C-alpha cells in the first residue's frame, strides 16, 4: 500500500513585493462561509524516467510567479472596525508542504479511500492569532514510480470551489507558458441592477429564511465529527442522458441530484423511517449575477429544496424530486440572490457565533459542474487524471458533490463524490436504483 512521507514545510512568497497598505474586504457571501474550508486534490501522470523532486522545484517557482497576481491569497486575515473579517495584503505568502509517496499514481488511485486521499492535502485550523495563519496550503506529493498529486486547501472565507480551480488553472498556465490566460478579478459583489427592480417586488423569502435559520441557530464552535466516508462514482454520458430523460431534467445536476436524493433517502429510510430526507442545494451564482467566471471570491449560494410530503417508493418519487430541484434552481434568479445579499448586508452581526452553512440536518447537493479542473495542465500533454473536491467539515446528513468528468468521456458524463456515514456509503453503493445507471466506483470504502 502506498505510503505518504512528509519531507518539509515552507512558505512560498510572490516574486514582486505587494504595495504596502493594501486591504481587501470580504463580501457577505464570503463571510457567511467562515467555518468551512475546501480541499482539492488533482492527480497527474508524469513523464517516464523523470527524476523525483524536479517537478516540485519547478512548480514552486511558478507558484511564486502566480502569487504575484493573487495578493489576496498571500495576505492574512484581520478584523475591521466593524468586527468583520477582511484581508490585509501583507505579502506573507502561502504554506507549501512537500511529500513523497511510494508506488505510482495509477496504483494509488486504484486503492485509495477518503482517509488516504486526505493525506495528500495539508490543512491547519485557524490559529488563535489569525494574523500569522496562512489561508492557503499547497501540498505537492511526488510518486516515486511516477505521478504527481497537487493538494490545495484553503479557507472558504476567501474562496469558493470555482475560484480556487481558477487559481490552480492560473498556476498551470504560468508553469506551462508563462502567461495567465484568464487573470482573476477582484471586486465587491455587484449592486442590484437599477432597471431590475419590479414594482411591488416581494423579496425572495424562502432563501432569506434558509440563511436566517442558519445564522440564528449556529451549531457550537466545537462540532463533534462523526466517522464519514466518501465514495467517488462516475456516470457515463449515455447513463446521464437516460437519467435526464427519465426525470425530464434540464441539466445533469438536476437529474443526478434528484437520483442521489432518492437513493440516499432510501438508505437512510431503512434506518430512520420513510420519506425523503431534507435537502439543500448549493450552486455557483456567477452567471446569475452577471459576473465573469474570473471573479475571485465566494459566489456559491445554498437553498433548501421543498418537497411535498408523501411516500412513494417508485419512479414518481424520482421525477417529483427532480421537479422540486428544478423549481428551486429556477427561483434562484438575479432578483432572488440580490434580495439575499441585501438582507445579509443588514443582518451580519454574527461575529461571535458564525453559521455553519452545511451543518445541521440537511443533505447538501453541491453543483460544481462548471469547474474547469481538467483544464489545469502543468506540463504539455498531461491533463489531470482525477480531481477530488471536499468541502469540510462534513456534518449533518451528508454531502453530494457533482463534478465534471475528464475530457473525452462525453459532454454529459459526470463524477459524483458522496460523503455519508461509513455504513451508509457501503449501502448506497449497492442501492438498486443507483445501480440501474451503472456507475463505475472510482473510490469506494475499503
Amino acid at each position, binding site marked *: 500500500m502506498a505510503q505518504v512521507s512528509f519531507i518539509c514545510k*515552507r*512558505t512560498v512568497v510572490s516574486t514582486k*513585493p505587494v504595495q504596502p497598505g493594501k486591504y481587501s474586504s470580504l463580501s457577505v457571501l464570503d463571510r457567511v462561509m467562515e467555518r468551512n474550508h475546501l480541499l482539492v486534490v488533482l492527480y497527474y501522470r508524469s513523464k517516464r524516467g523523470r527524476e523525483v523532486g524536479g517537478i516540485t522545484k519547478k512548480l514552486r517557482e511558478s507558484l511564486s510567479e502566480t502569487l504575484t497576481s493573487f495578493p489576496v491569497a498571500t495576505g492574512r486575515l484581520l478584523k475591521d472596525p466593524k468586527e468583520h473579517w477582511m484581508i490585509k495584503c*501583507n505579502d*506573507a*505568502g502561502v504554506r507549501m508542504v512537500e511529500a513523497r509517496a511510494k508506488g505510482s499514481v495509477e496504483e494509488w488511485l486504484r486503492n485509495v479511500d477518503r482517509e488516504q486521499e486526505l493525506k495528500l492535502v495539508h490543512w491547519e485550523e485557524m490559529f488563535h492569532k489569525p494574523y500569522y495563519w496562512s489561508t492557503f496550503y499547497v501540498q505537492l506529493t511526488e510518486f516515486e514510480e511516477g505521478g504527481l498529486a497537487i493538494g490545495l486547501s484553503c479557507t472558504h472565507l476567501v474562496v469558493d470551489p470555482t475560484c480556487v480551480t481558477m487559481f490552480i488553472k492560473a498556476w498551470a498556465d504560468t508553469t506551462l507558458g508563462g502567461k495567465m490566460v484568464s487573470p482573476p478579478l477582484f471586486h465587491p459583489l455587484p449592486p442590484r441592477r437599477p432597471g431590475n427592480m419590479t414594482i411591488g417586488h416581494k423579496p425572495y423569502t424562502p432563501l432569506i429564511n434558509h440563511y436566517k435559520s442558519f445564522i440564528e441557530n449556529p451549531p457550537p464552535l466545537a462540532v463533534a465529527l462523526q466517522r464519514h466516508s466518501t465514495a467517488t462514482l462516475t456516470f457515463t454520458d449515455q447513463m446521464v442522458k437516460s437519467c435526464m430523460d427519465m426525470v425530464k431534467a434540464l441539466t445533469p445536476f438536476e437529474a443526478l441530484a434528484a437520483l442521489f436524493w432518492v437513493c440516499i433517502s432510501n438508505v437512510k429510510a431503512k434506518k430512520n423511517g420513510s420519506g425523503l430526507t431534507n435537502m439543500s442545494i448549493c450552486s455557483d451564482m456567477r452567471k446569475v449575477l452577471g459576473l465573469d467566471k474570473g471573479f475571485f471570491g465566494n459566489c456559491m449560494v445554498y437553498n433548501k429544496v421543498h418537497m411535498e410530503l408523501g411516500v412513494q417508493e417508485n419512479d414518481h418519487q424520482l421525477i417529483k424530486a427532480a421537479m422540486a430541484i428544478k423549481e428551486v434552481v429556477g427561483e434562484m434568479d438575479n432578483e432572488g440572490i440580490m434580495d439575499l445579499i441585501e438582507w445579509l448586508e443588514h443582518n451580519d452581526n454574527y461575529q461571535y457565533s458564525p453559521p455553519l452553512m452545511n451543518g445541521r440536518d440537511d443533505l447538501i447537493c453541491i453543483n460544481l459542474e462548471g469547474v474547469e479542473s481538467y483544464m489545469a495542465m502543468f506540463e504539455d500533454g498531461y491533463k489531470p487524471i482525477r480531481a477530488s473536491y471536499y468541502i469540510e467539515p462534513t456534518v449533518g446528513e451528508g454531502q453530494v458533490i457533482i463534478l465534471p468528468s475528464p475530457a473525452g468521456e462525453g459532454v454529459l458524463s459526470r463524477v459524483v463524490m458522496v460523503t455519508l456515514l461509513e455504513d451508509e456509503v457501503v449501502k448506497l453503493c449497492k442501492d438498486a436504483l443507483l445501480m440501474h445507471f451503472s456507475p463505475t466506483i472510482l473510490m469506494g470504502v475499503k
Partner: protein
Amino acid sequence: MPPKLPEFSNSVKLKHVKLGYQYLVNHFLTLLLVPVILGLLVQLLQLGPHEILNLWNNLHFDLIQILCSSFLIVFVTALYFMSKPRLVYLVDYACFKPPVALRVPFSTFMEHSRIILSSEPKSVDFQMKILERSGLGEETSLPPAIHYIPPNPTMEASRQEAELVIFSAMDLLLNKTGLKPKDVDILIVNCSLFSPTPSLSAMVINKYKMRGNVKSFNLSGMGCSAGLISIDLARDLLQVYPKSNAVVVSTEIITPNYYQGKERSMLVPNCLFRMGGAAILLSNRGSDRRRAKYRLLRVVRTHKGADDTAYRCVFEQEDPQGKVGILLSKDLMAIAGEALKSNITTLGPLVLPASEQLLFLVTLIGRKVFNAKWKPYIPDFKLAFEHFCIHAGGRAVIDELQRNLQLSAEHVEASRMTLHRFGNTSSSSLWYELSYIEAKGRMKKGDRVWQIAFGSGFKCNSAVWKCNKTIETPVVDGPWFDCVDRYPVDIPEVVKH
C-alpha cells in the same frame, strides 16, 4: 529678509575663501615654480642669442664624463622603474543576484519567527523592532534551508548555498571577462562562517577544473572586512608574480549561522544578514590596462584586536541553552568609531590633498601647544574621493559614518540602497554598492572610490580605487539592472507592518 541674508552671504564668502585656500596650497609648487621659470626665461632672453651660443660652445665635455653621466641617468631610471610597485588593475567583477523565489518579505520573516519561537514572544517582538528599524527592504533573500518551518540548516544545505552563490558569481565573471578557468593564476575565497573540508577554494577549483599550480587561498573567520583583506592579499601576491591574474571570491554563507535560540543580543544577525556574493578579477598584466575598470591605489588595514573590548565586541559563542550564535556587544558603535579614526589617520596623509593635511596639522599643533579647546579639524574626505562605499553593516553604521565624515545623502546613497535591496551581505556588500554607483551612471574616468569595511576582530579596512574608464549605462549584467530605476527610495525610520 535682512536676518537671513548675512548668513547666506557669509557662507558664500567662506566657501570662496576655502576654495581659494585649497587652490593655493594644492598647487603650491606650481605657483612657486612658474614665477621662477618665468624669471629665468626673461633673463635668458635678455642675454640675447649670441651669448647663449657662446655659453653652449664653452661647455667642454669629455667622453668619460658623458659616458658616466648617461650611465648614471640610465641606472637611476632603471632603479626607479624596478622599485615601483606593480600596478594592480581590477579588470571586472560580478555580483550574485539571488533568484526571486528566495525573497523574504518582512511579514514572512516575522511569521516564521512567531511560529518557531512561539514560546518566546518577547524575543519575537525584539526581532520585529530590529527589522522595522533595520533599513532592509522587501526584496532581500535568505537561502532555501532558512525558508523551512522549522529551518533546516544541514551541512548539505550549506554546501548547496555555497555552490549556488559562488558558482553563479564565477560563471558571470568568466562570461564578462572572457577569462578561461585554466588561466587563473591566483584564487582567493573568503567566507567567514562556513569553512568545510575541502575548502571552498578547492570547491571552485574542482568545479572549474583549474590548473594544478594555481595558488589557492581560503580565508575564513575574518568577518565582514575579509573582502578587502583578500584584495590586499591578492595585491601582495601580484607584486611577487609577474604577468598574473587573481580571482577573489567574497561571500557569506547564511545557512549554518541562523541563530535558533532566544537571546536578544544574538538575534540581530538573523534580522540583518542576507544572501550575497561577488567574484572579482584582478590583474597586473599590462595588456589588461586598456579594458580594466579600476586601478587599485591603496589598501589600508587597521586592527584593534589588541584591545580586549574591541576583540570581544563581535563574538561567536553558545547561549545558555547551548545554541551557537554571534553576540554583538553594546559598545559596537563606539568601537567602530575608534577603528575608523585609526584607519583614516593612516589613510589621510596618503590620499588627502595638501590643503587638508596642512589644516589638520595646524589645528593639531594648535590644540597641543596653544589651546586644547580648539575644535579638532575633520579633514574633508570629499576632496579626496568622488564616491564612497561604506559596508552596509546596518543602518546605524552608515548613519555613524555619515555623521563622522560629514558626508551628504548622495555619498551614502549607494550604501543605504544596497542595505535596502540586498540586506547585509557581509564582505560582498562593497561590490553591490560599487555596482549601484555604476548603474546610476555616476562613475567617470579618473573618479576615486573609497571602500570601507568593518569586521569582527575588530578591524577596519579601506581600499582606494581609481576609475580607469567611464562606465556606460545601462549596466546590463549587474545586480541592479532590473531595479535601479526604482532607486533611490525613501527609507522610513520605522517601517510599520
